Structures are given as structure tokens and as C-alpha cells.
């Protein structure tokens, strides 16, 4: 639609208002994450200059902070080289405190959490791609007795909320000593009625001629699945993969119940633990928060198309 100028201005105005609702909290978190411990609550939005400044006897001096104390800073004046102790309030602006990131990174094994999350999410995604595509293939391209009955029974399980299942699955894993293991987090995630249904719907749209041609050439069912159906289903597989990956990457409830060893925690669970331990140390907390958000944003920017397509496909056609 072509917009008349006043309408256009209005559209931009509202686009910006909504963008602010999302950007401002993130920006504020970022600013907090690079504030010095004593300045977290000064309420300033842009507290940084390239160098910090302190005014002594009406004269402004550039400084470097030597040490932070409870209510004061020990500073070195860059012009004279003198070291002075000044009250925090006297320091007018301050350079970003990147130390929060270094300290947080050292105090909390974020790198480890990342690797754990990658291991879990990749395993779950690959597992679901295999199990769902095999199932979807059987339900869409093979003829066998009981097929449709089994399919509807399977579809009905979509209505069961995870809540009812978690306690027995927990007990099952406990019985097989799989609590606090990666397998315990991964195994229950390897199957999905939702994904099977999604791929079945997609496989149905692939013309039968191609399959017939392959069968005449002597291909068996597995050959058709591997050489005809899978290669033609790239978009659907990619959509399912991104959807499953994001879901598994962000999953909280299940890994938080299964995992206890800090070395095995996935990112969300590790982050929640970190939040419980460091709460009130806002600078560090916000640094940790940024450390977890930035890769998610990068992941979004790289896989943008797949992610939105995946959501639309898995969402609306499901």
C-alpha cells in the first residue's frame, strides 16, 4: 500500500515506540553491565566518556582509576601523575568497566554451559530429524495395515501436557541411573509427534512419480526415503531443525530437574543458578545476562530466514 505522508509519519512514530519497548531495556542492561560496582544505581544512561574526569579546586583533571574503595576511588591524575583519594561523587564520568565481563566469565563456567547446551540441543535436533522423518515417511508414503489408526493415536498425544509426563519420566531415568547425565536430558527429547506430523504433511506434497521412477530402478523403501524424499524436503527439515534447536536451547524445566552437577548444566539452568548466587551484584548479573543474550541475537541474525519460516511452518500448519 502507498502511504500518504502524514500516515507515514504516524507509522514511523509507532514503529519507534514499540522498538523502544524492546531496545531500551536491553540498552539499559548493557549500560548497567559496564558500570562500576558503586555506580550501578546512579540512574545515568550514558555515564561514559573516553576518560574519567574529576574536578579538584575548580580544575578538571583527567584520571585513571587505580582502586575502587567503598565510598571513594583511588585515582591517578594523568596530567601530574599524582595519586589521590576522591569521593565517588566527585568522579564525573567514568570509562566502561569491562571487568564485569571478565570477572563474570571467570566466576561462572559460561563456556562450559555453552558447550553443554550445544551438545544437548544438537543431539535433540539430530534425533528428532531422524525419528520424525522416518515416522513421517511411513505415515505418508508407505501402505500398511493400521497406518491411519496409529497415526491418529499418535496425533492425539499432542494434547497431553508435559506436566503429567515429567514425574514418571524422572522416575524412569532415576531407575536407570540417568539422572544428572546428558542422556537424561537428551533421551526424552528425541521423539516428537509434532515434528512427525509436520514432516508427514510436507512429504505428502512430493509427487508420487519420482518415487515410482526410483522403485522401477530397483530402490527399496529406505532408498526412496534416503534418495528421493529427504533431498526434496530441505526447507521442511531446516524449519523443523531450527524450531527444535531453539526450543531445546532455551528449555528450562526439564534440564533444571534432571541436572544437578554444575559442570553439566545447560545455559538457562546455569544462568538461573548464577542469578540465585549473585543476586544484588547487578553489574555482574547484567554482564552474565548480556553474555547469554548476545549469542542468541547473533544466532537470530545468521539464521533469521530459517527461524521465521520455521515458526510460521511449524506454527500455522501444525
Amino acid at each position: 500500500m502507498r502511504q500518504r505522508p502524514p500516515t507515514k509519519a504516524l507509522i514511523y512514530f509507532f514503529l519507534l515506540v514499540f522498538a523502544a519497548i524492546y531496545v531500551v531495556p536491553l540498552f539499559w542492561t548493557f549500560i548497567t553491565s559496564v558500570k562500576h560496582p558503586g555506580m550501578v544505581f546512579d540512574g545515568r544512561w550514558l555515564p561514559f566518556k573516553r576518560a574519567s574526569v574529576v574536578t579538584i579546586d575548580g580544575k578538571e583533571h583527567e584520571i585513571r582509576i587505580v582502586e575502587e574503595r567503598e565510598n571513594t576511588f583511588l585515582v591517578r591524575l594523568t596530567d601530574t601523575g599524582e595519586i589521590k583519594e576522591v569521593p565517588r561523587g566527585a568522579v564525573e564520568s567514568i570509562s566502561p568497566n569491562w571487568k564485569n565481563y571478565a570477572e563474570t566469565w571467570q566466576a561462572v563456567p559460561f563456556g562450559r554451559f555453552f558447550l553443554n547446551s550445544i551438545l544437548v540441543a544438537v543431539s535433540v535436533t539430530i534425533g528428532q530429524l531422524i525419528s520424525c522423518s522416518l515416522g513421517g515417511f511411513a505415515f505418508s508414503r508407505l501402505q500398511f495395515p493400521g497406518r491411519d489408526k496409529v497415526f491418529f493415536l499418535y496425533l492425539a498425544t499432542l494434547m497431553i501436557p508435559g506436566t503429567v509426563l515429567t514425574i514418571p519420566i524422572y522416575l524412569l531415568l532415576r531407575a536407570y541411573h540417568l539422572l544428572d547425565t546428558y542422556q537424561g536430558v537428551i533421551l526424552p527429547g528425541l521423539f516428537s509427534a509434532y515434528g512427525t506430523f509436520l514432516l508427514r504433511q510436507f512429504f505428502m506434497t512430493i509427487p508420487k512419480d519420482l518415487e515410482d521412477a526410483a522403485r522401477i530402478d530397483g530402490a527399496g523403501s529406505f532408498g526412496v526415503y534416503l534418495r528421493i524424499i529427504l533431498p526434496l524436503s530441505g526447507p521442511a527439515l531446516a524449519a523443523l531443525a531450527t524450531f527444535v534447536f531453539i526450543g531445546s536451547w532455551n528449555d528450562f524445566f526439564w534440564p533444571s530437574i534432571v541436572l544437578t552437577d554444575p559442570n553439566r548444566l545447560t545455559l538457562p539452568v546455569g544462568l538461573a543458578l548464577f542469578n540465585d548466587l549473585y543476586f544484588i551484584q547487578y553489574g555482574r548479573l547484567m554482564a552474565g545476562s548480556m553474555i547469554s543474550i548476545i549469542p542468541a541475537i547473533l544466532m537470530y541474525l545468521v539464521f533469521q530466514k530459517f527461524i521465521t519460516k520455521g515458526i510460521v511452518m511449524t506454527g500455522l500448519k501444525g
Partner: protein
Amino acid sequence: MTKTSARNAQLLSTSAFRHALTGYAFLLPNIIGFLLFTLGPILFSFVISFFDWNLFSKPLFVDTANYAKIFLEKDSQFWSYFGNTMFFLIVVPLQMGLALMMAYLLNQGVRGTTVFKVVYFVPVVVSMVSIAILWEYLLDTENGLLNQILSLFGARKIAWLGEPQWIKPGISMMVVWQSAAFSTIIYYAALQGVPEHLYEVATIDGATRWSQFWKITFPLLAPSHFFLLVTGFIGTLQLFAPIYVMTHGVPGAARNIIFEVYWKAYHEFEMGYASALSWVLFVLIFVVSGIQWKYIGKRVHYG
């Protein structure tokens, strides 16, 4: 004659058998998963909801005592958890409204839309835990951004996560903020599918933008509304991570049914009682979804 038909029948049955074998072989992973992680658990969960079992003792059959404890016992707080569970449902219409506005704006196709799209869609990949941590700080009483903004309008400082009556609205705001991204993607895709000529006709007829939106756009989005409403309710009835993170896992004024299931099962190890409670939640979800299908789903026409 009879010889050949007998042979055909034999051939047929072996080939039917072979087909079945192939079919179920492909389904094997799903069947194993279904038995181990769906059918088995659901039966088991139903059975132990009639037992008293703390993991370490021998399970003791108690008939319907667990259910009686939920509904009939005097100091049962079930109705408070139930009320909290229902309170959070307010999130669904709010986030849908926010999402619809954002999707509508994106769909106007002005220059720079790509950038706004990134901003609106990004929360979909950020974990609820990161967002909850961020929001815990936004909602801080003394220094939180929200109270700072409110104080510009002369409002008093609210202890969002401290005062019992404010904790649910506080958590709800965060969930709206996060979950609107998903709905915006769904609405945006649906809006892109609305044919342009419908608006052209309406413009010629002199319809205002406002009435175009309510008479054309909104009704055409019915399948999306319905999908988001149903899945939104199912998800929100089981809202866990935001409550857990923002209350640091301590039972408090925001405790809903699933939090209580979690607490009873994994902190107090009352597996029977927790299972009974999870069945109550299951029935609640089932009833709520059923009502939606019956009264709203019927009116949705898929174009």
C-alpha cells in the same frame, strides 16, 4: 484356477506382511519413544496418583486421598494456586494485542522495516531465563527502570517483586514482552497473505483505515487468532521458568499449579500427591482447550 488363486492369496499375504514389516520398521523409533516417554508415563502417573510415595518408602495405596487432599482438605491452598494459574492467562490477550499492532506496522512496508523486524522478532530466540534476570532488574523497587519511568508521572515506587499483589502483574508484563515476538511472526506471515485487492475495493468504497482494519484485516486473521489463543492458553497454564527465576525458586505469592507440582515432587518428594495435582492441571488444560474449540474454533473459517 484354484491353484493360482491360492498362490495369489499367499503372495498377497506375504506382501502385506512385508509391507507391514517395512512400515512398522520405519515407525520403530517413534513407537519406542511413545511407549517409554508418553504412554508408559501417563499410565504410571495415573496409577501413582492413588498412592502415597516419597521415593524412599514403599508406595502405599491411599485410594483417592491425594485428590481429596487437593480439593477437600481445610488448609489446602489449591484454590490460591488455581487463581494464580488463571491470573496469568491475562498474558495471552495482551501479548496478542501487542503482537498484532507490531505486525500491522511491519506490514505497512515502510522503509527500514527490516531493522524493525529484527528488533521485534529477536526475543523469540532469547531464553526466558536471560529475560527474567533482565526484568528482575527492570522491576527493582528503588532503581528499576519501570519505577523510574512511573515516577516521572508522579507514581509511588512499587515493590513489583516484593508486594504480593504486584508480583503477578510484574511477571505478566515480562511474559507479554517476551512472548509477543512469537505471535508477531505468526501475525506478520498471515498479514502478508491478505490479498491487496480487498483493501483497494474498500478504499474505493471510502472505508477508513480504522474500519478497514476491523472489517477486513481482523476477521481474515481468525485462524491466527485462534491458533495463538489455544497454544497461548496451553503454554500459559503451564508457565514455569519466569516464576521460578523471578522468585528464585522459592514458593511465594505467584505460585501456580505447575510450580506446586514441581515443589511437591522435587523438593518434598510427595510423588503421589504431585502426580494427582498434575492430573488436575491436565484436566484443567483439557477443559479450557475444549471450551475454546467448541465456542471459538467452530466460527473460524480457513480461507
